[in-house]
């Protein structure tokens, strides 16, 4: 056997367990999902008749599905603007104040390692209408008029869930911004300081432009993760009141596992997956370009 032949054989032998697992549990479901989106399946029998484009027609006409996409987008925008503004502020503050940096880093990222279910349970407990700390605090400081059933009120349900998401997610942006800040050459700040720029101007004219690739990546990753919110919403509101906090994954889950319309659920997955893939490709492309610079 030629050396290249031997190396190729060795390479694929080393790769074979990984390729087998990925093929069976990642690529096969991917193909299966696309096929299923043109079929009808009740989730029980083995009979899956072809229905053509019927599932997609239903998805296009499903207002709740598109509303769920809008809600996910709202979570993404709130996470992007509010969450990442906080993350960036925290990162700037930590890198300017090395004292206690270890503790702050530990504290900020801690929520990020929790499960979505635990996060949901925590916020459900704090927002509990009668004995939750939020309403009790409002009563205690004399703002009892502001007390409400946060998760059941159409006006506050989405912002409340978004609050839980921001809390859960801010450590992630913080870590990326912190790494980005540390990569900015210190001389730039010194030169600006010598020219008389105060902290705000240095931020505006040095930090912010230098951080642009990081900001873009954090932004897209925030959007991608917000679109996939599921467990926390299921625990907090299960999509309600009505469909005010419905999200795509929850919609797909209900369509399949509660209404037994797995073909429609598969078509929703394809539409939803396409959006996520486009976002990820954009992110990778930007990441490559930033690394090449």
């Amino acid at each position, binding site marked *: 056997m030629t050396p290249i032949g031997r190396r190729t054989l060795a390479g694929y032998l080393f790769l074979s367990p990984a390729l087998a697992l990925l093929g069976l549990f990642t690529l096969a479901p991917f193909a299966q999902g696309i096929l299923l989106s043109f079929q009808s399946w009740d989730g029980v029998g083995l009979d899956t008749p072809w229905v053509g484009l019927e599932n997609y027609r239903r998805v296009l006409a499903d207002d709740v599905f598109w509303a769920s996409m809008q809600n996910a987008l709202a979570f993404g925008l709130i996470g992007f603007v509010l969450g990442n503004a*906080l993350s960036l502020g925290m990162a700037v503050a930590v890198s300017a104040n090395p004292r206690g940096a270890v503790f702050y880093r530990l504290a900020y990222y801690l929520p990020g390692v929790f499960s979505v279910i635990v996060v949901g*349970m925590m916020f459900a407990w704090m927002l509990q209408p009668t004995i939750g700390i939020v309403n009790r605090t409002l009563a205690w400081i004399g703002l009892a008029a502001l007390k409400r059933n946060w998760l059941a009120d159409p006006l506050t349900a989405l912002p409340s869930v978004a609050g839980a998401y921001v809390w859960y997610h801010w450590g*992630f942006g913080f870590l990326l911004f912190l790494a980005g800040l540390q990569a900015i050459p210190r001389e730039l700040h010194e030169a600006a300081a010598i020219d008389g720029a105060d902290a705000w101007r240095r931020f505006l004219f040095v930090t912010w432009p230098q951080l642009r690739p990081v900001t873009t990546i954090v932004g897209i990753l925030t959007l991608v993760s917000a679109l*996939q919110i599921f467990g926390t919403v299921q625990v907090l509101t299960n999509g309600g009141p009505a469909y005010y906090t419905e999200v795509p994954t929850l919609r797909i889950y209900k369509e399949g596992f509660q209404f037994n319309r797995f073909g429609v659920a598969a078509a929703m997955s394809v539409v939803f997956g396409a959006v996520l893939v486009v976002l990820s490709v954009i992110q990778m492309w930007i990441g490559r370009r930033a690394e090449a610079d």
Partner: protein
Amino acid sequence: MDHIRTPAARPQPLPLAPAARRILVTLPERAAYHGLLVVVAFLSLFPIFWLFSGSLQSAPELYGGVTILPRTPQFRNYATAWTEGHFGTFLGNSLLYASVTVAVILFVASMAGYALARIEFLGRAAVLGLILAVMIVPLPASFVALYKLLIALGLANTRVGYVLALTAGGLPISIFILRGFFVRQPRELEDAAVLDGCSTWDVYWRIMLPLARPGLAAVGIIQFLYVWNEYLLALVMFSTDALMPIQRGLTQFVSSDTPEQHILLAATAMAVLPVIVLYVFAQRSIVQGIMEGAVRG
């Protein structure tokens, strides 16, 4: 902050004289920074504190008014959740799923990562691209089809099916992180080993794998956390309580037993306590893994 590694080697900042540092951050700015740091740290930690405080209170304390700390910690809440809520079973299941998944991932991903880093074989670029592509489609867009596949294979509602599906899910990012570690190792050791007559397997198993230990630790911890926190797949594929992992057990407990608030808080605390301990001791590896995942993924 030396342990947050940026992807490329950056020039080290010049050491600053104390006077120069004072130019950079004035006193009022420093005060503003400190204010922000303290407020956000409080916001980060308070919900966690509030969970644990509530989990140790008696029902009258919990329902009666605001109790910051319970007068006598009610560890019996935990015992109730452990026995009546079957949290002993759920925690045991999660420990099993997480350990087995991590072990399989480390073995399979390190072999693949080594081959992709060091063996020059035909089609390497294509395989690398394929694994990168696989990483893009996330579980929320594929769980319906995965469920159908698990049924077809007779693996729905089984421990083996859950572990295999999670292993496949964790492989791409693990392969990329480990490949990075192997690429960064010096070649001399390998060359010497080959001259001594070592086979490719020996080079991987006896020389490269021990060198990649920090990478293996990072990947192992990240994947352990991932499996411990996994919910969506467990939700759709398990119908037998005795097989459910902890996160699934938690929502099962809420929907089937409608537990009292203090028992539910104790159950939630049990689900998160191992994660907090792991995080405090392995923060370096976790942060490093997240950064690599974000930059590459």
